[in-house]
Protein backbone atom coordinates (compact mmCIF):
# COMPACT_ATOMS: atom_id res chain seq x y z
CA UNK A 1 0.00 0.00 0.00
CA UNK A 2 2.64 2.46 1.09
CA UNK A 3 4.65 1.73 -2.02
CA UNK A 4 1.72 2.63 -4.18
CA UNK A 5 1.23 6.07 -2.62
CA UNK A 6 4.92 6.73 -3.00
CA UNK A 7 4.87 6.12 -6.75
CA UNK A 8 1.74 8.22 -7.01
CA UNK A 9 3.53 11.10 -5.37
CA UNK A 10 6.52 10.78 -7.63
CA UNK A 11 4.50 11.02 -10.79
CA UNK A 12 2.98 14.38 -10.04
CA UNK A 13 0.27 14.20 -12.67
CA UNK A 14 -2.16 17.04 -12.60
CA UNK A 15 -5.16 14.88 -11.84
CA UNK A 16 -7.67 17.70 -12.31
CA UNK A 17 -6.27 18.63 -15.69
CA UNK A 18 -6.30 15.05 -16.99
CA UNK A 19 -9.83 14.40 -15.79
CA UNK A 20 -10.91 17.74 -17.25
CA UNK A 21 -9.42 16.97 -20.64
CA UNK A 22 -10.84 13.43 -20.73
CA UNK A 23 -14.35 14.50 -19.72
CA UNK A 24 -14.38 17.40 -22.15
CA UNK A 25 -13.10 15.18 -24.96
CA UNK A 26 -15.72 12.48 -24.28
CA UNK A 27 -18.45 15.07 -24.67
CA UNK A 28 -17.04 17.44 -27.25
CA UNK A 29 -15.79 14.90 -29.81
CA UNK A 30 -19.15 13.11 -30.26
CA UNK A 31 -20.96 16.41 -30.35
CA UNK A 32 -18.60 17.67 -33.05
CA UNK A 33 -19.33 14.49 -34.99
CA UNK A 34 -23.01 15.13 -34.32
CA UNK A 35 -22.64 18.33 -36.28
CA UNK A 36 -22.24 16.28 -39.48
CA UNK A 37 -23.34 12.75 -38.78
CA UNK A 38 -25.51 10.87 -36.32
CA UNK A 39 -26.22 7.12 -36.37
CA UNK A 40 -29.89 7.81 -37.11
CA UNK A 41 -31.84 10.91 -37.94
CA UNK A 42 -32.54 12.31 -34.47
CA UNK A 43 -35.99 13.48 -35.52
CA UNK A 44 -37.26 10.34 -37.30
CA UNK A 45 -39.93 8.65 -35.24
CA UNK A 46 -40.39 4.93 -35.39
CA UNK A 47 -43.47 3.68 -33.57
CA UNK A 48 -42.30 0.07 -33.54
CA UNK A 49 -39.27 1.10 -31.43
CA UNK A 50 -41.17 3.15 -28.82
CA UNK A 51 -39.35 2.94 -25.50
CA UNK A 52 -37.04 0.25 -26.83
CA UNK A 53 -34.22 -0.65 -24.47
CA UNK A 54 -30.55 -0.46 -25.37
CA UNK A 55 -29.54 -2.80 -28.16
CA UNK A 56 -26.70 -3.12 -30.68
CA UNK A 57 -28.67 -1.09 -33.20
CA UNK A 58 -29.67 1.59 -30.68
CA UNK A 59 -26.92 1.79 -28.05
CA UNK A 60 -28.90 4.02 -25.69
CA UNK A 61 -32.33 2.75 -26.69
CA UNK A 62 -35.19 4.81 -28.04
CA UNK A 63 -37.50 7.39 -26.51
CA UNK A 64 -41.26 7.68 -26.25
CA UNK A 65 -41.54 8.55 -29.96
CA UNK A 66 -39.14 5.80 -31.02
CA UNK A 67 -36.29 8.22 -31.75
CA UNK A 68 -32.71 7.00 -31.27
CA UNK A 69 -31.47 8.42 -27.95
CA UNK A 70 -27.75 8.31 -28.86
CA UNK A 71 -28.40 10.38 -31.98
CA UNK A 72 -30.47 12.81 -29.98
CA UNK A 73 -27.82 13.13 -27.28
CA UNK A 74 -25.19 13.81 -29.94
CA UNK A 75 -27.37 16.36 -31.69
CA UNK A 76 -28.54 17.81 -28.40
CA UNK A 77 -25.08 18.33 -26.96
CA UNK A 78 -24.06 19.96 -30.24
CA UNK A 79 -26.95 22.38 -29.86
CA UNK A 80 -26.15 23.01 -26.21
CA UNK A 81 -22.45 23.55 -26.95
CA UNK A 82 -23.20 25.93 -29.81
CA UNK A 83 -25.64 27.93 -27.72
CA UNK A 84 -23.03 28.05 -24.93
CA UNK A 85 -20.37 29.22 -27.36
CA UNK A 86 -22.67 31.76 -28.94
CA UNK A 87 -23.73 33.11 -25.56
CA UNK A 88 -20.18 33.46 -24.30
CA UNK A 89 -19.02 35.01 -27.56
CA UNK A 90 -21.90 37.50 -27.52
CA UNK A 91 -21.50 38.38 -23.84
CA UNK A 92 -17.73 38.47 -24.02
CA UNK A 93 -17.47 40.69 -27.10
CA UNK A 94 -20.01 43.25 -25.95
CA UNK A 95 -18.84 43.02 -22.34
CA UNK A 96 -15.24 43.61 -23.41
CA UNK A 97 -16.19 46.63 -25.47
CA UNK A 98 -18.25 48.12 -22.63
CA UNK A 99 -15.56 47.31 -20.07
CA UNK A 100 -12.79 48.70 -22.26
CA UNK A 101 -14.53 52.01 -22.87
CA UNK A 102 -15.61 52.52 -19.27
CA UNK A 103 -12.27 51.46 -17.82
CA UNK A 104 -10.20 53.45 -20.29
CA UNK A 105 -12.10 56.72 -20.36
CA UNK A 106 -13.58 56.77 -16.87
CA UNK A 107 -15.60 59.86 -16.00
CA UNK A 108 -19.21 60.30 -16.95
CA UNK A 109 -19.40 57.48 -19.55
CA UNK A 110 -18.07 55.13 -16.90
CA UNK A 111 -20.64 56.26 -14.33
CA UNK A 112 -23.60 55.91 -16.69
CA UNK A 113 -22.66 52.54 -18.20
CA UNK A 114 -21.57 51.00 -14.91
CA UNK A 115 -24.75 52.04 -13.13
CA UNK A 116 -26.76 50.38 -15.93
CA UNK A 117 -24.48 47.42 -15.45
CA UNK A 118 -25.18 47.35 -11.72
CA UNK A 119 -28.90 47.32 -12.39
CA UNK A 120 -28.53 44.32 -14.71
CA UNK A 121 -26.13 42.69 -12.29
CA UNK A 122 -28.66 42.90 -9.48
CA UNK A 123 -30.94 40.37 -11.22
CA UNK A 124 -29.95 36.71 -11.41
CA UNK A 125 -28.82 36.14 -14.99
CA UNK A 126 -31.30 33.30 -15.54
CA UNK A 127 -34.14 35.62 -14.56
CA UNK A 128 -32.82 38.30 -16.87
CA UNK A 129 -32.60 35.73 -19.66
CA UNK A 130 -36.23 34.77 -18.98
CA UNK A 131 -37.25 38.38 -19.47
CA UNK A 132 -35.34 38.64 -22.74
CA UNK A 133 -36.79 35.35 -23.97
CA UNK A 134 -40.24 36.74 -23.19
CA UNK A 135 -39.39 39.75 -25.34
CA UNK A 136 -37.53 37.97 -28.14
CA UNK A 137 -39.52 34.74 -28.28
CA UNK A 138 -38.15 31.24 -27.82
CA UNK A 139 -35.87 29.27 -30.11
CA UNK A 140 -32.16 28.60 -30.50
CA UNK A 141 -31.08 32.02 -31.69
CA UNK A 142 -33.32 33.96 -29.36
CA UNK A 143 -32.00 31.99 -26.38
CA UNK A 144 -28.42 32.66 -27.44
CA UNK A 145 -29.03 36.38 -27.67
CA UNK A 146 -31.06 36.49 -24.45
CA UNK A 147 -28.39 34.66 -22.46
CA UNK A 148 -25.68 36.69 -24.16
CA UNK A 149 -27.25 39.95 -23.04
CA UNK A 150 -27.63 38.57 -19.53
CA UNK A 151 -23.92 37.70 -19.50
CA UNK A 152 -22.64 41.11 -20.62
CA UNK A 153 -22.41 42.73 -17.16
CA UNK A 154 -20.06 40.17 -15.64
CA UNK A 155 -17.58 40.46 -18.52
CA UNK A 156 -17.86 44.25 -18.55
CA UNK A 157 -16.93 44.28 -14.89
CA UNK A 158 -13.92 42.00 -15.26
CA UNK A 159 -12.55 43.85 -18.29
CA UNK A 160 -13.16 47.25 -16.73
CA UNK A 161 -11.17 46.44 -13.62
CA UNK A 162 -8.32 45.07 -15.74
CA UNK A 163 -8.29 48.21 -17.86
CA UNK A 164 -8.22 50.44 -14.82
CA UNK A 165 -5.26 48.46 -13.53
CA UNK A 166 -3.38 48.60 -16.82
CA UNK A 167 -4.18 52.06 -18.14
CA UNK A 168 -1.61 53.88 -16.01
CA UNK A 169 1.19 51.49 -16.84
CA UNK A 170 4.14 53.06 -18.60
CA UNK A 171 3.73 50.89 -21.67
CA UNK A 172 0.25 52.26 -22.24
CA UNK A 173 1.63 55.76 -21.87
CA UNK A 174 4.36 55.01 -24.36
CA UNK A 175 1.84 53.52 -26.78
CA UNK A 176 -0.10 56.79 -26.57
CA UNK A 177 3.13 58.68 -26.98
CA UNK A 178 3.88 56.68 -30.11
CA UNK A 179 0.84 58.44 -31.49
CA UNK A 180 -1.52 55.47 -31.35
CA UNK A 181 -5.21 56.33 -31.53
CA UNK A 182 -7.35 55.52 -28.49
CA UNK A 183 -8.98 52.50 -30.14
CA UNK A 184 -5.57 51.13 -31.07
CA UNK A 185 -4.26 51.62 -27.54
CA UNK A 186 -7.36 49.93 -26.12
CA UNK A 187 -7.60 46.91 -28.35
CA UNK A 188 -4.11 46.33 -29.72
CA UNK A 189 -1.95 47.29 -26.75
CA UNK A 190 -4.14 46.72 -23.72
CA UNK A 191 -6.52 43.89 -24.62
CA UNK A 192 -3.82 41.18 -24.99
CA UNK A 193 -2.82 41.93 -21.40
CA UNK A 194 -6.32 41.05 -20.22
CA UNK A 195 -6.54 37.74 -22.09
CA UNK A 196 -5.38 35.64 -19.17
CA UNK A 197 -8.06 36.89 -16.82
CA UNK A 198 -10.62 36.84 -19.61
CA UNK A 199 -9.79 33.26 -20.63
CA UNK A 200 -10.65 31.70 -17.29
CA UNK A 201 -13.83 33.72 -16.96
CA UNK A 202 -14.80 32.67 -20.48
CA UNK A 203 -14.57 29.00 -19.49
CA UNK A 204 -16.54 29.56 -16.29
CA UNK A 205 -19.03 31.68 -18.19
CA UNK A 206 -19.33 28.94 -20.78
CA UNK A 207 -20.36 26.53 -18.04
CA UNK A 208 -22.93 28.93 -16.68
CA UNK A 209 -24.25 29.42 -20.20
CA UNK A 210 -24.58 25.67 -20.77
CA UNK A 211 -26.45 25.27 -17.48
CA UNK A 212 -28.63 28.31 -18.15
CA UNK A 213 -29.53 27.01 -21.61
CA UNK A 214 -30.37 23.59 -20.17
CA UNK A 215 -32.46 25.33 -17.53
CA UNK A 216 -34.38 27.42 -20.05
CA UNK A 217 -34.97 24.45 -22.33
CA UNK A 218 -36.05 22.36 -19.36
CA UNK A 219 -38.66 24.99 -18.59
CA UNK A 220 -39.75 24.69 -22.20
CA UNK A 221 -38.86 28.21 -23.29
CA UNK A 222 -35.48 27.45 -24.80
CA UNK A 223 -34.89 25.17 -27.75
CA UNK A 224 -38.22 24.13 -29.26
CA UNK A 225 -39.14 20.60 -30.43
CA UNK A 226 -38.33 18.86 -32.65
CA UNK A 227 -34.82 20.33 -32.12
CA UNK A 228 -32.99 18.47 -29.39
CA UNK A 229 -30.94 20.02 -26.64
CA UNK A 230 -29.79 18.40 -23.43
CA UNK A 231 -32.23 20.52 -21.44
CA UNK A 232 -35.23 19.79 -23.62
CA UNK A 233 -34.42 16.06 -23.57
CA UNK A 234 -34.35 16.11 -19.79
CA UNK A 235 -37.62 17.95 -19.80
CA UNK A 236 -39.26 15.33 -22.05
CA UNK A 237 -37.78 12.48 -20.04
CA UNK A 238 -39.19 13.58 -16.68
CA UNK A 239 -42.61 12.12 -17.49
CA UNK A 240 -41.01 8.69 -17.78
CA UNK A 241 -38.51 9.16 -14.96
CA UNK A 242 -39.59 6.03 -13.10
CA UNK A 243 -40.66 3.80 -15.95
CA UNK A 244 -37.70 4.61 -18.21
CA UNK A 245 -34.90 6.38 -16.25
CA UNK A 246 -32.42 5.79 -19.10
CA UNK A 247 -34.03 8.62 -21.06
CA UNK A 248 -33.04 11.11 -18.36
CA UNK A 249 -29.73 9.51 -17.46
CA UNK A 250 -28.19 9.76 -20.94
CA UNK A 251 -28.55 13.54 -21.41
CA UNK A 252 -28.07 14.15 -17.68
CA UNK A 253 -24.70 12.44 -17.51
CA UNK A 254 -23.62 14.17 -20.72
CA UNK A 255 -24.49 17.54 -19.22
CA UNK A 256 -22.63 16.77 -16.00
CA UNK A 257 -19.52 15.61 -17.87
CA UNK A 258 -19.57 18.68 -20.07
CA UNK A 259 -19.85 21.12 -17.18
CA UNK A 260 -17.44 19.28 -14.89
CA UNK A 261 -14.82 18.83 -17.59
CA UNK A 262 -14.85 22.48 -18.58
CA UNK A 263 -14.90 23.63 -14.96
CA UNK A 264 -11.72 21.63 -14.29
CA UNK A 265 -10.07 23.13 -17.38
CA UNK A 266 -11.17 26.58 -16.29
CA UNK A 267 -9.58 26.08 -12.90
CA UNK A 268 -6.34 25.17 -14.60
CA UNK A 269 -6.40 28.24 -16.83
CA UNK A 270 -7.13 30.33 -13.76
CA UNK A 271 -3.82 29.13 -12.36
CA UNK A 272 -5.29 27.72 -9.16
CA UNK A 273 -5.20 24.10 -8.07
Amino acid at each position, binding site marked *: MSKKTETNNKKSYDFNLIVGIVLTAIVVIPSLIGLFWTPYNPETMNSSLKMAGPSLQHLMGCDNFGRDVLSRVMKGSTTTLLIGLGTVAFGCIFGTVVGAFTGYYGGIIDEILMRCNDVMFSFPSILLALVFVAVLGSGKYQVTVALGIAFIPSYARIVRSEYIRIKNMDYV*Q*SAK*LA*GAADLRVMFV*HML*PNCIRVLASSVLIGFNNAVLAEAGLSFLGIGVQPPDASLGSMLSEAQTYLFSKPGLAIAPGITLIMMVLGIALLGKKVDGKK
Partner: protein
Amino acid sequence: MANNLLHVEDLNIEFHDHIIPETVVYDFDLDMTEGEIVGLVGESGSGKSMSALAIAGLLSRHDMRKRGKIEFGDTDVLTCPREKLRSLQGNEISMIFQEPMTSLNPVKKIGWQVEETMRIHTDKTAEERRARALEVLSHVGLEDAERVYNSYPHQLSGGMRQRVMIAAAMAITPRLLIADEPTTALDVTVQAQIVDLLKHINKKHNTSILFISHDLSLVRSLCSRVLVMKGGYVVEKGPVEEVFNHPVEEYTKKLIAAIPKVEL
Protein backbone atom coordinates in the same frame (compact mmCIF):
# COMPACT_ATOMS: atom_id res chain seq x y z
CA MET B 1 21.31 81.28 -33.02
CA ALA B 2 19.88 77.82 -33.40
CA ASN B 3 16.20 77.33 -34.18
CA ASN B 4 13.78 77.50 -31.33
CA LEU B 5 12.18 74.10 -30.84
CA LEU B 6 10.07 74.28 -27.73
CA HIS B 7 8.57 77.25 -25.95
CA VAL B 8 6.79 76.73 -22.65
CA GLU B 9 5.31 79.75 -20.97
CA ASP B 10 3.46 80.08 -17.66
CA LEU B 11 2.51 76.42 -17.47
CA ASN B 12 0.30 75.68 -14.48
CA ILE B 13 -1.04 72.21 -13.76
CA GLU B 14 -3.88 71.69 -11.32
CA PHE B 15 -5.59 68.54 -10.08
CA HIS B 16 -9.30 68.67 -9.45
CA ASP B 17 -9.87 65.25 -7.98
CA HIS B 18 -10.26 66.63 -4.47
CA ILE B 19 -12.65 69.29 -3.26
CA ILE B 20 -9.82 71.81 -3.00
CA PRO B 21 -7.86 71.94 -6.29
CA GLU B 22 -4.21 71.18 -5.90
CA THR B 23 -1.61 72.86 -8.05
CA VAL B 24 1.42 70.73 -8.82
CA VAL B 25 3.30 72.97 -11.26
CA TYR B 26 3.44 76.79 -11.05
CA ASP B 27 4.52 79.17 -13.82
CA PHE B 28 6.84 76.76 -15.58
CA ASP B 29 8.88 78.42 -18.35
CA LEU B 30 11.24 76.65 -20.69
CA ASP B 31 12.81 77.38 -24.05
CA MET B 32 14.72 74.73 -25.90
CA THR B 33 16.62 75.06 -29.14
CA GLU B 34 17.38 72.42 -31.73
CA GLY B 35 20.09 70.04 -30.54
CA GLU B 36 20.23 71.24 -26.95
CA ILE B 37 20.31 69.05 -23.84
CA VAL B 38 18.50 70.59 -20.89
CA GLY B 39 18.51 69.08 -17.43
CA LEU B 40 15.55 69.21 -15.08
CA VAL B 41 16.41 68.37 -11.48
CA GLY B 42 14.55 68.39 -8.20
CA GLU B 43 13.31 66.16 -5.44
CA SER B 44 10.49 63.64 -5.78
CA GLY B 45 7.14 65.35 -6.13
CA SER B 46 8.62 68.63 -7.28
CA GLY B 47 6.66 68.55 -10.54
CA LYS B 48 9.42 67.45 -12.92
CA SER B 49 7.58 64.49 -14.38
CA MET B 50 4.27 66.36 -14.51
CA SER B 51 5.85 69.12 -16.58
CA ALA B 52 7.46 66.54 -18.86
CA LEU B 53 4.20 64.63 -19.34
CA ALA B 54 2.43 67.88 -20.14
CA ILE B 55 5.04 68.73 -22.77
CA ALA B 56 4.61 65.28 -24.29
CA GLY B 57 0.85 65.87 -24.41
CA LEU B 58 0.14 62.91 -22.14
CA LEU B 59 -1.80 64.74 -19.46
CA SER B 60 -5.31 64.27 -20.72
CA ARG B 61 -7.08 63.35 -17.52
CA HIS B 62 -10.43 64.98 -17.15
CA ASP B 63 -9.81 66.00 -13.55
CA MET B 64 -6.86 68.15 -14.45
CA ARG B 65 -6.60 71.77 -15.59
CA LYS B 66 -3.68 73.12 -17.49
CA ARG B 67 -3.04 76.79 -18.16
CA GLY B 68 -0.30 78.43 -20.13
CA LYS B 69 1.34 77.68 -23.43
CA ILE B 70 3.39 74.77 -24.68
CA GLU B 71 4.46 75.54 -28.22
CA PHE B 72 6.23 72.89 -30.19
CA GLY B 73 7.22 74.42 -33.51
CA ASP B 74 4.01 76.27 -34.34
CA THR B 75 1.65 73.86 -32.57
CA ASP B 76 0.26 74.49 -29.11
CA VAL B 77 0.30 71.09 -27.45
CA LEU B 78 -2.33 72.13 -24.91
CA THR B 79 -4.97 73.40 -27.27
CA CYS B 80 -4.42 71.67 -30.60
CA PRO B 81 -6.88 68.95 -31.64
CA ARG B 82 -6.13 65.36 -30.69
CA GLU B 83 -5.34 64.42 -34.30
CA LYS B 84 -2.65 67.10 -34.58
CA LEU B 85 -1.20 66.07 -31.23
CA ARG B 86 -0.99 62.47 -32.35
CA SER B 87 0.93 63.45 -35.44
CA LEU B 88 3.51 65.05 -33.13
CA GLN B 89 3.67 62.19 -30.67
CA GLY B 90 6.11 59.52 -31.72
CA ASN B 91 6.96 61.52 -34.80
CA GLU B 92 8.53 64.63 -33.30
CA ILE B 93 8.36 64.03 -29.55
CA SER B 94 9.38 60.78 -27.88
CA MET B 95 9.80 59.83 -24.28
CA ILE B 96 11.73 57.30 -22.24
CA PHE B 97 10.32 56.32 -18.88
CA GLN B 98 11.97 55.66 -15.58
CA GLU B 99 11.09 52.05 -15.04
CA PRO B 100 12.26 49.79 -17.86
CA MET B 101 10.37 46.90 -16.25
CA THR B 102 6.96 48.40 -16.92
CA SER B 103 7.54 50.58 -19.94
CA LEU B 104 7.49 47.70 -22.40
CA ASN B 105 4.32 45.77 -23.10
CA PRO B 106 4.82 42.31 -21.55
CA VAL B 107 2.81 40.41 -24.15
CA LYS B 108 4.29 41.87 -27.33
CA LYS B 109 7.61 41.07 -28.93
CA ILE B 110 10.34 43.71 -28.81
CA GLY B 111 10.42 44.04 -32.59
CA TRP B 112 6.69 44.73 -32.72
CA GLN B 113 7.03 47.45 -30.11
CA VAL B 114 9.99 49.13 -31.78
CA GLU B 115 8.08 49.14 -35.07
CA GLU B 116 4.95 50.66 -33.54
CA THR B 117 5.78 54.31 -34.30
CA MET B 118 6.67 53.39 -37.87
CA ARG B 119 3.43 51.48 -38.25
CA ILE B 120 1.48 54.52 -37.13
CA HIS B 121 3.37 57.34 -38.80
CA THR B 122 4.91 55.93 -41.98
CA ASP B 123 3.82 53.82 -44.97
CA LYS B 124 6.82 51.53 -44.71
CA THR B 125 6.31 47.90 -45.67
CA ALA B 126 6.83 45.13 -43.13
CA GLU B 127 10.34 44.42 -44.43
CA GLU B 128 11.39 48.06 -44.33
CA ARG B 129 10.10 48.37 -40.78
CA ARG B 130 11.93 45.25 -39.75
CA ALA B 131 15.17 46.43 -41.32
CA ARG B 132 14.87 49.81 -39.61
CA ALA B 133 14.04 48.19 -36.25
CA LEU B 134 17.10 45.95 -36.46
CA GLU B 135 19.16 48.98 -37.43
CA VAL B 136 18.09 51.09 -34.43
CA LEU B 137 18.42 48.13 -32.09
CA SER B 138 22.03 47.65 -33.13
CA HIS B 139 22.62 51.44 -32.95
CA VAL B 140 21.70 51.52 -29.29
CA GLY B 141 24.37 48.94 -28.57
CA LEU B 142 22.37 45.74 -28.52
CA GLU B 143 24.76 43.27 -30.05
CA ASP B 144 22.44 40.46 -31.01
CA ALA B 145 19.74 42.65 -32.55
CA GLU B 146 18.12 39.73 -34.35
CA ARG B 147 17.62 37.82 -31.10
CA VAL B 148 16.39 40.88 -29.19
CA TYR B 149 13.95 41.59 -32.03
CA ASN B 150 12.30 38.23 -31.45
CA SER B 151 12.35 38.36 -27.64
CA TYR B 152 9.72 39.28 -25.12
CA PRO B 153 10.53 41.98 -22.55
CA HIS B 154 10.88 39.51 -19.65
CA GLN B 155 13.75 37.83 -21.49
CA LEU B 156 15.90 40.98 -21.33
CA SER B 157 17.81 42.66 -18.52
CA GLY B 158 16.95 46.13 -17.22
CA GLY B 159 19.75 47.83 -19.13
CA MET B 160 18.79 46.05 -22.33
CA ARG B 161 15.17 47.07 -21.91
CA GLN B 162 16.15 50.69 -21.43
CA ARG B 163 18.18 50.47 -24.63
CA VAL B 164 15.16 48.97 -26.36
CA MET B 165 13.08 51.90 -25.10
CA ILE B 166 15.61 54.32 -26.55
CA ALA B 167 15.62 52.38 -29.81
CA ALA B 168 11.82 52.54 -29.96
CA ALA B 169 11.91 56.26 -29.21
CA MET B 170 14.51 56.83 -31.94
CA ALA B 171 12.88 54.65 -34.62
CA ILE B 172 11.71 57.70 -36.54
CA THR B 173 14.27 60.22 -35.28
CA PRO B 174 12.20 62.65 -33.19
CA ARG B 175 13.29 66.23 -32.70
CA LEU B 176 12.71 66.16 -28.96
CA LEU B 177 13.46 63.25 -26.67
CA ILE B 178 12.17 63.48 -23.12
CA ALA B 179 14.09 61.20 -20.79
CA ASP B 180 12.22 60.89 -17.50
CA GLU B 181 14.83 59.59 -15.07
CA PRO B 182 16.06 57.02 -17.58
CA THR B 183 18.91 55.85 -15.37
CA THR B 184 17.31 55.72 -11.93
CA ALA B 185 16.40 52.04 -12.04
CA LEU B 186 19.78 50.96 -13.43
CA ASP B 187 23.11 50.25 -11.79
CA VAL B 188 26.02 52.66 -12.09
CA THR B 189 27.94 51.14 -15.00
CA VAL B 190 24.79 50.76 -17.08
CA GLN B 191 23.85 54.34 -16.17
CA ALA B 192 27.07 55.62 -17.68
CA GLN B 193 26.47 53.62 -20.86
CA ILE B 194 22.95 54.98 -21.24
CA VAL B 195 24.15 58.53 -20.73
CA ASP B 196 26.85 58.01 -23.36
CA LEU B 197 24.22 56.65 -25.69
CA LEU B 198 22.04 59.73 -25.17
CA LYS B 199 25.03 61.98 -25.87
CA HIS B 200 25.78 60.03 -29.02
CA ILE B 201 22.18 60.30 -30.22
CA ASN B 202 22.20 64.02 -29.54
CA LYS B 203 25.36 64.53 -31.60
CA LYS B 204 24.39 62.28 -34.45
CA HIS B 205 20.78 63.29 -35.05
CA ASN B 206 20.83 66.75 -33.46
CA THR B 207 17.92 65.59 -31.27
CA SER B 208 17.14 67.85 -28.35
CA ILE B 209 16.94 66.05 -25.03
CA LEU B 210 15.05 67.07 -21.92
CA PHE B 211 16.87 65.07 -19.28
CA ILE B 212 14.99 64.66 -16.02
CA SER B 213 17.00 63.33 -13.13
CA HIS B 214 17.84 63.70 -9.51
CA ASP B 215 21.37 62.60 -10.17
CA LEU B 216 23.20 65.92 -10.34
CA SER B 217 26.53 64.54 -11.45
CA LEU B 218 24.89 62.94 -14.50
CA VAL B 219 23.15 66.21 -15.31
CA ARG B 220 26.43 68.05 -15.03
CA SER B 221 28.18 65.71 -17.43
CA LEU B 222 25.37 65.64 -19.98
CA CYS B 223 23.47 68.92 -20.07
CA SER B 224 24.30 72.42 -21.19
CA ARG B 225 21.55 74.12 -19.20
CA VAL B 226 19.72 73.10 -16.06
CA LEU B 227 16.44 73.93 -14.31
CA VAL B 228 16.02 73.25 -10.60
CA MET B 229 12.48 72.59 -9.39
CA LYS B 230 11.09 72.52 -5.89
CA GLY B 231 7.49 72.20 -4.77
CA GLY B 232 6.14 72.95 -8.25
CA TYR B 233 8.26 76.06 -8.82
CA VAL B 234 11.36 76.48 -10.94
CA VAL B 235 13.67 77.93 -8.32
CA GLU B 236 16.79 78.35 -10.38
CA LYS B 237 17.88 78.03 -13.97
CA GLY B 238 20.92 78.75 -16.08
CA PRO B 239 23.95 77.20 -17.79
CA VAL B 240 25.11 74.07 -15.96
CA GLU B 241 28.53 75.33 -14.90
CA GLU B 242 27.14 78.60 -13.60
CA VAL B 243 24.43 76.90 -11.53
CA PHE B 244 26.83 74.32 -10.17
CA ASN B 245 29.65 76.70 -9.38
CA HIS B 246 27.65 79.68 -8.18
CA PRO B 247 24.27 78.49 -6.96
CA VAL B 248 22.07 81.36 -5.86
CA GLU B 249 19.22 79.57 -4.15
CA GLU B 250 19.64 77.90 -0.78
CA TYR B 251 17.90 74.78 -2.12
CA THR B 252 20.29 74.44 -5.05
CA LYS B 253 23.25 74.82 -2.70
CA LYS B 254 21.89 72.01 -0.54
CA LEU B 255 21.33 69.79 -3.57
CA ILE B 256 24.87 70.35 -4.80
CA ALA B 257 26.31 69.80 -1.34
CA ALA B 258 24.50 66.47 -1.28
CA ILE B 259 26.42 65.05 -4.26
CA PRO B 260 28.59 62.31 -2.81
CA LYS B 261 32.26 63.03 -3.40
CA VAL B 262 34.80 60.31 -3.77
CA GLU B 263 38.12 61.43 -2.40
CA LEU B 264 41.12 59.19 -2.78
